[in-house]
């Protein structure tokens, strides 16, 4: 099992695709930082205009912590896209290259192979999200410094500077779980269709569709929200609410965990009975 995992990780980190996604993420983070470095003051003074009429705001509002939070918000669709480009390929790439025939003719069980692939998918997702977190935080802190943060989630949230980093850490951990759930779904599609592009299109299609439905907070779609994975994925933001609603976050974490378990279970079922007849 360890051997197979080492091989999967070797393949993952030998592929240009892996590093391209890392590089794009870093580039996106730096572009957001650069944009806000150049025009941030102007944008924020416009956004904070209503506040300035009623409050006296002292200190560095446009600071590194706020930028880190905003960078994550800005890239919330880009991140899943980049992640599943690699994670689906871990599975469907074997079908596309035809190497699945070589792997399955070795004296190893299909379950061991799939387990190794799932673990490498999780490792990649963790690496990716850590890169996102580090490059959202470090450059913005260097460029903009640190201070208390004002965020708009369910009203105005005032986050003390000292509590920002733990909140950011927990949000990252939650985001890793969310991305593992999303990758698990994409993995199942990749095994079902044996094609990377189809799996990516289907996963992104669902992401866009559910996000769209989620925007209709009133009306017929409002009752659907708790069943949409996008609704639960977005709950990482709640770590930046003054009084963190741990119960709501835990419910969403359970939803995402169940979603991961369901798609991983379905993938084992599918892979273990799959005929490789082509």
């Amino acid at each position, binding site marked *: 099992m360890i*051997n197979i995992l080492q091989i999967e990780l070797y393949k993952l980190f030998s592929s240009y695709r892996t590093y391209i996604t890392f590089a794009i993420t870093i580039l996106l983070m730096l572009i957001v930082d650069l944009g806000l470095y150049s025009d941030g003051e102007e944008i924020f003074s416009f956004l904070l205009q209503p506040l300035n009429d009623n409050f006296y705001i002292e200190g560095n509002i446009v600071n590194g912590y706020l930028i880190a939070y905003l960078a994550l918000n800005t890239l919330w669709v880009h991140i899943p896209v980049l992640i599943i480009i690699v994670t689906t390929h871990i599975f469907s790439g074997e079908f596309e290259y035809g190497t699945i*025939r070589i792997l399955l003719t070795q004296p190893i069980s299909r379950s061991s192979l799939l387990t190794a692939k799932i673990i490498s998918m999780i490792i990649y997702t963790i690496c990716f999200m850590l890169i996102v977190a580090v490059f959202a935080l470090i450059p913005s802190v260097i460029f903009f410094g640190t201070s208390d943060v004002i965020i708009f989630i369910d009203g105005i949230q005032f986050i003390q500077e000292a509590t920002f980093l733990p909140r950011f850490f927990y949000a990252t951990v939650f985001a890793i779980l969310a991305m593992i759930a999303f990758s698990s779904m994409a993995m199942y599609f990749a095994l079902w269709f044996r094609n990377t592009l189809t799996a990516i299109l289907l996963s992104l299609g669902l992401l866009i569709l559910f996000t769209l439905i989620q925007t209709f907070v009133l009306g017929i779609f409002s009752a659907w929200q708790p069943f949409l994975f996008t609704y639960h994925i977005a709950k990482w933001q709640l770590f930046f609410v003054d009084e963190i609603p741990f119960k709501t976050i835990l419910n969403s974490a359970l939803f995402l965990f169940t979603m991961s378990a369901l798609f991983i279970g379905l993938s084992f079922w599918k892979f273990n009975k799959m005929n490789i007849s082509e």
Partner: protein
Amino acid sequence: MQILKVEDLSLQYGDQIILDQVSFSIKKGQIVGLLGPNGAGKSSIIKILAGLVFPKNGRLYFKSKLQNSFSDLREYCGYLIDSPSFYPYLTAKQNLNLIKKINKSDLKIEDLLFKVGLFDLNKKKVKHFSTGMKQRLAIAQALLRSPEILILDEPFNGLDPNGFQDVLNLLEKLNKDGITIIISSHLLNELEQFAEMFILLHNGKIALEICKETLINSKQRVAFTFENKPSSKANEYITKVDGIFTSDFKAVIHLKPNEIAEVVNTLVSIKSTPINVETLTILQEHYLEITA
């Protein structure tokens, strides 16, 4: 000594029967040719033996011991399934190293690459390999486990004559080292050159199972073509040896290989020299009937 025995192997996709109670056995050290037109079921047998496809029914014995499943055979076999596939972004050596690691093999990659004639190319990425080179690399991959049986599905596909000869020589060498070889192909003439036993499949069933010795000693269909209409003496002689005329200028007689020369000599002596003599073995005859 019997190394492999397959009994009542059946495979079905929905309502479509792919294999229908196929049974055969293979002796250690044999080269066995699985023959048949496209869709006959030969690749399906190979894929079942490789654990890629799950049969509906069937039993497998390896060295007379009943196996729990067909996948168990992977422990003792090396495979080349369809067109050889590797990770294109890795070199030949890196690709083989991955398979070596799975198998915990002690074999040296360099030795294997030398054996298949790819030693000089071990640092070249596989995406730059020709079909013949990939085919040889696939054989190297199949040898990593020091297999007792080598199972090859259409290993000559896409090979030029030189590539074909290289692979053929390699397989013959491996067989001399004691490896049993099962090889599927729709190229009858190529397989006849070196296989020792032939299993001809048609519509998921075994149409003919024959060993080379029986094939060589059995009667062949010999077609004699004449430039002019044969003389009455020749007509009389051909009828006497149970021959029939398929046209005014062509006669067909079923003869043992050692009888062919005698018939030709007789025809020459009665001044009806054939301008062409074509022979078809039982296997070729069956194959032509099936593919027609």
